[in-house]
């Protein structure tokens, strides 16, 4: 699913990383970063409500291409800048975790092997 489609589905605001043609193959939704680190899939995105820099580090270690902060949460400039340096797109959506994941799942985005 292209990033542009994800932005549309989640009515998301793009904070950095504007390649709307970037392909996202899988998604993981979690507020616990060690749970996310157990999720090893390629070309993935992370949905989370955790707006500290460790969410970016987690996405970086997993080669994730995009982070979407849910529940209308806005990360600080330090988080966005770190993501920009690591070439990770950052979105924010007003939808809560369950709804955001549901919208993406309904549109065909899956969670990999689990």
């Amino acid at each position, binding site marked *: 699913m292209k990033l542009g489609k994800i932005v549309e589905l989640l009515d998301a605001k793009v904070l950095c990383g504007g390649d709307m043609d970037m392909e996202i193959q899988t998604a993981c939704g979690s507020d*616990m970063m060690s749970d996310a*680190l157990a999720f*090893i899939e390629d070309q993935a995105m992370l949905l989370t409500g955790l707006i*500290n820099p460790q969410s970016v580090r*987690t996405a*970086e*270690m997993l080669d994730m291409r995009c982070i979407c902060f849910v529940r209308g949460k806005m990360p600080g400039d330090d988080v966005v800048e770190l993501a920009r340096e*690591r070439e990770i797109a950052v979105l924010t959506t007003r939808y809560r975790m369950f709804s955001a994941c549901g919208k993406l799942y309904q549109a065909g985005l899956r969670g990999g092997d689990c």
Partner: protein
Amino acid sequence: MTSKSSVEPITQQYVIPGTDFTRAGEASSKVKTILKRLGYDSDAIRRVSIAMYEGEINMVIHAHGGTAKVEIFPDRVEITLSDQGPGISDVSKAMEEGYSTAPDEVRALGFGAGMGLPNMKKCSDDMRVHSVIGKGTDVYMTIRVRGAGG
């Protein structure tokens, strides 16, 4: 930065500060960058990154920081994480998924799920933990990699 010998590794050493949680992950990020420049396979780079990052986080959460030594060979990466923290009283228990001794304030930061050591083990081809109560913990991990052209 290219290894010219099949025996001598490229060695990197890092101090992991224990006072600033926001800086945890910097060393792992640097190692990941080095491995990418050396052309190692992406799957192995991901496993090295995750294993080392979980180790960094553990040292910050539980041991007020420590040191990391990374030796990069053509066919493997060896990571040694050392701290002088309180030690692990029951290593086998700590290896269970979901078991955590992290304080509540750490859980609020998104960690303490009890997946750190299990994730490290899952990402490693070999992992050993040596811990002494009151003195500290050493974690040794080996992750097999494929170099550029290998």
